[in-house]
């Protein structure tokens, strides 16, 4: 019996004999051990014993502030999903550490990457013009879009010019920002996402919840349910290989027949006019190279000056994201193939305005690796959909308010400001400090709840007056002593709901000091 005869579930652990043994060519860590590719060593998380409905994301109510805490609470109420999410992403964090510690010059690389990005952003006008000139010289059509709506109109115009009605595209956070899929659906254009995770999200009509792993909040059973409903697969088969193969087989015909292909952009090289994409599935190559019309959407902050700078970022990107030395595919798109047309759309969509924000402009250094999400203890336990935004997790907390200050006013508070995000960031964005700075901006502009601001005003008034403070501490002590348990553990007491209250001490330090050290009134 060959491996192919086995049911997919039974095939686990069977190694195809043509698979080559590991060679000595692969990279070694400081301890001399061979570094494994992160995805190759990912262990399947044990399938949950019972079916647990997938928790859905934040409730979107127009511009009203997102209640991330409410959505996170619902996520945690699905313990199998919550545990799988935390475990999978913590695993990526550990792999990231192993990869980062495998390179002695890691911290220098981060500094270098930060400097290159800082320099480029400080001269962005020059590099954008250089990029445009180089791309045009390569025979590329270059377009400029002020915002998401203009981006969508430009792409629609290109499609209309060619009578194109179907697009295959690779994952792009920028097009998510622009609401591209929804817009095109309204125009009768069919879009097929080719990244596996992104395709799952498209078929389930959900926003991405993670920059790099768009469907990481779903279990295999969830995916089996979505695919059974939309692709007609076996609803009881949640084997990862079976599901991936089903997506592959149903997507291939779309790739072969699409009128146009689209990709996002990881790095845009000003010197050569090249768009570089980094993927593990090769789907950007298929999207870009198969159809006769190819379109690349580029956020203007993606620029780097020269091809020699690319290596710095390539070394950092996949190590930070997945703990692997490099993505499976690093693709350079420069010139249209013979008989085809190539378009590049440079999109601002709030980036120029962000560049002018003294405390927040360095968030534009972001290379979208997702390391801050993987390490964030709040994100791992909330699920990306709880943020109700294109960008979730730490980087989302500091970018989202630039898109809509009211809607995303609550997000900078969904953090303990522990600072781990800043330490894993490959381009050294001071993420947790920007979260802190956003809180100040939002409070000053009265974008935080009146209740919260009122509480802080009251606290500030008490804490500024020693006598009032002493009275309050005394009250807290005696209240804890005399109130029966039901009064302390009521639904309004959010501390006591899930935690025991601290014991009330016999006396405060202050009282102890007065009693023991001030008898003579000397101090």
């Amino acid at each position: 019996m060959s491996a192919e005869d086995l049911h997919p579930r039974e095939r686990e652990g069977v190694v195809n004999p043509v698979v080559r043994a590991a060679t000595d060519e692969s990279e070694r860590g400081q301890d001399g051990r061979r570094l494994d590719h992160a995805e190759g060593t990912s262990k399947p998380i044990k399938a949950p014993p019972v079916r647990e409905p997938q928790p859905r994301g934040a409730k979107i109510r127009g511009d009203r502030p997102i209640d991330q805490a409410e959505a996170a609470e619902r996520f945690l109420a699905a313990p199998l999903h919550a545990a799988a999410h935390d475990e999978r992403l913590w695993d990526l964090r550990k792999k990231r550490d192993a990869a980062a510690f495998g390179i002695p010059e890691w911290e220098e690389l981060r500094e270098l990457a930060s400097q290159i990005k800082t320099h480029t952003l400080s001269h962005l006008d020059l590099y954008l013009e250089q990029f445009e000139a180089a791309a045009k010289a390569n025979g590329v059509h270059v377009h400029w879009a002020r915002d998401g709506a203009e981006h969508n109109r430009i792409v629609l115009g290109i499609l209309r010019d060619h009578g194109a009605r179907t697009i295959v595209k690779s994952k792009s956070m920028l097009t998510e920002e622009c609401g591209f899929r929804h817009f095109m659906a309204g125009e009768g254009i069919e879009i097929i996402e080719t990244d596996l995770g992104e395709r799952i999200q498209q078929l389930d009509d959900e926003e991405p919840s993670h920059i790099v792993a768009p469907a990481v909040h779903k279990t295999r059973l969830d995916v089996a349910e979505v695919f059974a409903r939309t692709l007609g697969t076996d609803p009881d088969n949640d084997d990862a290989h079976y599901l991936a193969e089903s997506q592959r087989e149903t997507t291939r015909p779309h790739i072969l027949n699409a009128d146009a292909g689209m990709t996002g952009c990881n790095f845009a090289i000003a010197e050569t006019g090249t768009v570089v994409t980094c993927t593990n599935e090769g789907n950007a190559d298929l999207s870009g190279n198969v159809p006769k019309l190819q379109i690349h959407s580029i956020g203007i902050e993606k620029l780097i000056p020269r091809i020699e700078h690319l290596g710095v970022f390539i070394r950092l990107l996949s190590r930070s994201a997945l703990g692997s030395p490099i993505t499976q595919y690093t693709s350079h798109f420069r010139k249209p193939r013979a008989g085809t047309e190539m378009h590049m759309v440079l999109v601002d969509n709030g980036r120029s305005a962000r560049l002018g924000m003294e405390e927040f402009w360095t968030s534009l250094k972001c290379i979208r690796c997702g390391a801050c999400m993987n390490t964030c203890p709040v994100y791992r336990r909330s699920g990306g959909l709880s943020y109700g935004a294109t960008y979730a997790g730490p980087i989302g907390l500091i970018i989202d308010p630039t898109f809509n200050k009211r809607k995303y006013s609550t997000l900078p508070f969904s953090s303990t400001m522990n600072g781990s995000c800043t330490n894993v960031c490959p381009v050294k964005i001071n993420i947790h400090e920007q979260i802190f700075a956003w809180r100040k901006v939002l409070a000053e502009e009265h974008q935080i709840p009146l209740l919260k601001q009122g509480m802080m005003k009251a606290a500030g008034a008490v804490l500024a007056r020693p006598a009032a403070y002493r009275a309050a501490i005394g009250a807290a002590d005696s209240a804890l002593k005399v109130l029966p348990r039901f009064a302390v553990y009521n639904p309004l007491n959010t501390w006591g709901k899930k935690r025991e209250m601290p014991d009330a001490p016999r006396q405060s330090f202050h009282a102890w000091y007065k009693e023991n050290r001030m008898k003579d009134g000397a101090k």
Partner: protein
Amino acid sequence: MRIGLFVPCYVDAFEPEVGIATLELLERFGLDVHYPYDQTCCGQPMTNTGCHQEAAATEALFVKNFSGFDYVVAPSGSCVHQVREHLTAIPQTDAVRKVRESTFELVEFLHDVLKVEALPWARFPHKVAYHANCNALRGIDHARPSELNLPYFSKPLNLLKKVAGVELVNLARPDECCGFGGTFSVFEPAVSAKMGYDKVADQKRAGAEYVVSADSSCLMHQKGCAERLGLPLKYIHIAQVLNGAAA
């Protein structure tokens, strides 16, 4: 050396033993320790909520109370981080800058300023998990955080290793935040408590009897979580251990 002792508000109200241990420990080194009697808080609850203006009067009071000392010492990485990095709601006069620069967290004061070599009075024969408070770890450099590829060091562990009998156990996620996060603990209680549950479960799995930290706020949260889960873990501030607490 004239020392101003800052006892943070939650230590004052809930963990007076930590304040007493800090005072006694500093006095063991022959320091002239003063407790400014009108002290309240460093302003962190308001500042971390974005309400800097609401913190201004509290910050001014802090500076008034703690001017004129060679060092201000507090048993809290979080409050010291606030004073050093974020006490900015009031004009930055020379007096304000002086207070901010001379404020030290207890561990770093013992480790870097006094350069303590021995703690002959301290004995703590227990299995200990150390909890690194995030502000102490990443805000005032108590130790090399697990994310950075830099040479390893840890000031609190250097001190704990000088205490006879301490047996340190290793956590699976050594410097993952425990979820306290100040007002985060009450405004986002579900995630905060889940982080706490995961943290105390990690401590239990590591075989700890005691959890030691330089911040009472994290300990208060973790203790509440451990008690709710029925885990027999005990929580104690590093000041108490270094001062010779018999546990």
